[in-house]
């Protein structure tokens, strides 16, 4: 499986596959091939629970092709629990900012043609 396919499979389980540097311990998304901090190549797979809090987001009304039927929807950036890592994803059913306060709890729930799917907890 390619690196991206592994991310997709883990998202379908509600998890996030990450890479922990075996040299310095820094945690990355699993698409990293070399450590951001020390440059070394050895990684240990760490499967995180796909839970976190919304760091920022937007509600999209003018959508790229393929997404028109989902508008309005949110593109969200989520800070993972117990980590400095953030992950982006698609969140359905968000129409106004009142629907999604920054800091609210959310989780990865799948992957489909809308990318990584994130829902409110």
């Amino acid at each position: 499986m390619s690196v991206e396919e592994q991310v997709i499979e883990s998202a379908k389980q509600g998890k996030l596959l990450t890479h922990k540097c075996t040299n310095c311990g820094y945690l990355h998304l699993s698409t990293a091939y070399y450590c951001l901090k020390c440059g070394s190549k050895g990684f240990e797979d760490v499967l995180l629970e796909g839970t976190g809090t919304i760091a920022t987001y937007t509600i999209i009304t003018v959508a790229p092709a393929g997404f028109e039927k989902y508008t309005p929807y949110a593109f969200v950036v989520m800070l993972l629990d117990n980590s400095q890592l953030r992950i982006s994803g698609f969140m359905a059913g968000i129409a106004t900012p009142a629907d999604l306060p920054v800091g609210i709890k959310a989780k990865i729930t799948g992957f489909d043609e809308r990318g990584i799917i994130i829902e409110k907890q």
Partner: protein
Amino acid sequence: MEKVCVLGAGSTKYGKLSDSIADITTQASVAAIESAGIGPKDIKASYISNVFGVADRQVHIGPVLMSRLGIPERPSLSIESACGSGSVAFREAFANIAAGFYDCLLATGVEKVTHTGTEWTTTYFAYCSDFFYEGQAGASFPGLFASMARAYLTEFDATEEDFAKVAVKNHDNGLLNPKAHMHKKITVDDVMKSAVVASPLKLFDCCPFSDGASSVILCSEKFAKEHGGDYIEVIGSGRGGSPAALQGREQLTTIPSTKIASEAAYKMAGLTPKDIDFAEVHDCFTIAEVVDTEDLGFFEKGQGVQAVREDRTKLNSDISINPSGGLKSKGHPIGATGIGQVVEVYDQLTGKAGERTVKDAKIGLTHNFGATGASCAVHIFQSV
């Protein structure tokens, strides 16, 4: 290192143009050649920035341009770095003259996309994001900058009206620029009532999709002196990068590549942000201009909106930001924008900017980035 000068500059009008991409590329280049007072055979090579040539059925534009200029045997290089392509083409030409490889080069940027319509452009521009994480999850470019805007509103004392003031200012400046795409005076109320594109950004927070081409002639100081005419010096040049996806950045309200590129440019020039008289910055969205002016060191982090509120970035105030009207009002033909900024600086520093002249300006800065600032180049110029 050879001292590098800009000897001539030219642009087409920005907006919705009917001529082909090859035509507008040539029109801008001829304008630059004539502005420089040289002939095409003085040009040893060219650097051509363009992103979506495929939209007008012409990629590999360089050789087409060189053929039309009567110098088909001279080399050209096409450069893509998303919305930051122009400043990278400029940088490559700068570096080649500085290194002594050439004494006179052409850098031309071009984009022709408005005929494709909003859906095509929204879709294809999203391919400039880190697609696996962002575009694939439905992020548009307005959406990515809207995410930065939401983070800024959350973190700092800022309002959507503050962002709207940036658009109002740039439209005011654009009214004084005959080549600007948008000649339209707007109010904060107009911005606030315009349709939401990606909340909290509304239509008038966003720059338009534009067609256009811009071109400059770069040369060694020796060449500039021998050929007479007005020229300016390039005294600083820097490039930088950021994590491609917003999620990977330490702060969601800072663009690291801007800091890296500008610090390198200031260092080369031996200047600090206080020495800059005016700047053309990458205001693809109103939030971007606020963040840019902080990352470039003009204001403290979180204070960019305060400066906007106090009108400190208006034409001929503390620091004139985007006297041309910026991407917001002058327009954003993405492959041309970075070169177009240099055209504005050339016009400003050689007394050709008309009503929008920044008074007594000696030092100008250009700041242009690709995507959400994943790549960036900054240049600093001085009048002679």
